[in-house]
């Protein structure tokens, strides 16, 4: 694993592990980590829905606060870190910046696979459509 690996795939890998290890006693971990994985899966499959990144962050935080044991409490941490909309977006914007040299270089270690970049760009577009005054620069 190095800085060229897709953070979203790594998060997915960890969530698959959590899924296998979750004992199933408490609701946030049993169902919540399953849903996190499903959301990530659909984003990487190119079927992401508007608001998915925000939902991921909200659900991750709720699982972290509400789970019974350390497994649930830390399981979602990886997704909070690696797919936090800001870091995922900055990763995408970084690619965007390199390609189009419009946006200044953004410092971020998180990278995302092309499918995720595509999704995040799409999500930025969705949001822009809803609030035309917003600039993508604000996500840096």
């Amino acid at each position: 694993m190095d800085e060229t690996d897709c953070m979203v795939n790594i998060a997915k890998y960890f969530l698959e592990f959590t899924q296998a290890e979750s004992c199933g006693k408490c609701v946030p971990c049993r169902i919540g980590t399953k849903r996190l994985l499903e959301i990530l899966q659909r984003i990487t499959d190119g079927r992401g829905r508007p608001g998915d990144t925000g939902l991921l962050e909200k659900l991750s935080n709720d699982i972290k606060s509400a789970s019974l044991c350390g497994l649930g409490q830390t399981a979602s941490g990886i997704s909070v870190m690696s797919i936090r909309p800001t870091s995922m977006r900055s990763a995408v914007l970084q690619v965007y910046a390199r390609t189009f040299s419009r946006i200044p270089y953004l410092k971020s270690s998180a990278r995302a696979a092309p499918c995720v970049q595509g999704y995040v760009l799409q999500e930025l577009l969705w949001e822009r459509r809803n609030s035309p005054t917003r600039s993508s620069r604000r996500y840096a």
Partner: protein
Amino acid sequence: MMVTLTIDGRSIKVREGSTILQAVRENDIYVPTLCDDPRLEPYGGCRLCLVRIKGMARPVTACTTPVTEGMEVETTNEEIEGLRRTIVELLLSDHPTDCMICEKAGDCTLQELAYFYNLRENRFEGERRKYADSDGNPFIERNMEKCILCGKCVRVCNEVQGVNAIEIAYRGFSAKVCPPFEKDLDCEFCGQCVSVCPTGALMGKISMGMGRQKDIEKVESVCPYCGCGCNITLHVTRNEVIRVSSRPESLNEGWLCVKGRFGFKFNSSPERLKYPLIKRNGQFEETSWDEALDYVAERLGDIKDSYGADAIAGLSSARCTNEENYLFQKFMRAAIGTNNVDHCARY
């Protein structure tokens, strides 16, 4: 020893060793729960009873946290309600929304919570557990797709009934309550598990399709089967008993046995004996109590005269009250004159 703590700004005194949930309940503060039953050991699985304690990094579950002196508890705020909402929504995302045809509708804690949090759209829609097989046992309808894995049935079977007929098998999302090797349930069929289940996952087969909860009239009664005399509540619709339950605050704490809980169909059986019968010419004929009692007295007198009192024996029933049984032995000893008297529960 009493402990003083603050709950939602109110100063509250409770017994040392109580949990926060007990303290909250004693003071009529509402905290939602799904896996708690005051008669069972705390579990901490549903996470609905999360509360904030000042100075603690994370919310804690009220049902598993003992009170301490000077503790400052907050049972509701935006953060906690958000977490509870997420939990109920997650549960519903893995639940058949079957309320229209579900026996439990109207008496279901999950449905109530969905109403309370006004949940219609589900942010977390996704894969659901699907189980095709149904349990072939004669008494309990087990629909594990509706199970929220609160573990109450497992605990009641273990802690109260001592049978251990079911456990939670598998883990994570695939966790499932089942009898050993996922065979059909084969146990005492006391129905304790049915009585504690917060959802429609466990229902009495005998009550399926018999009527909605709102049409039920509840009639308090005493179980007619044995001398324990458990308190029962008859659920009546259209003049027919369709279910039997028992209140947790009754002398039997809401627990019944298979007879008390599921053996009520005799009530409306056409074969039920309602009048005394006398056998004449090989046929039973209905008769009046006066005639029947005169006949019995006459025959007992004849037998006693011809063969002596010890030719007669009496067997009474555990289904009678203590007073009735006392009178019966008095009758056998004083009126008939024999000690040949026994009782079905004495073997």
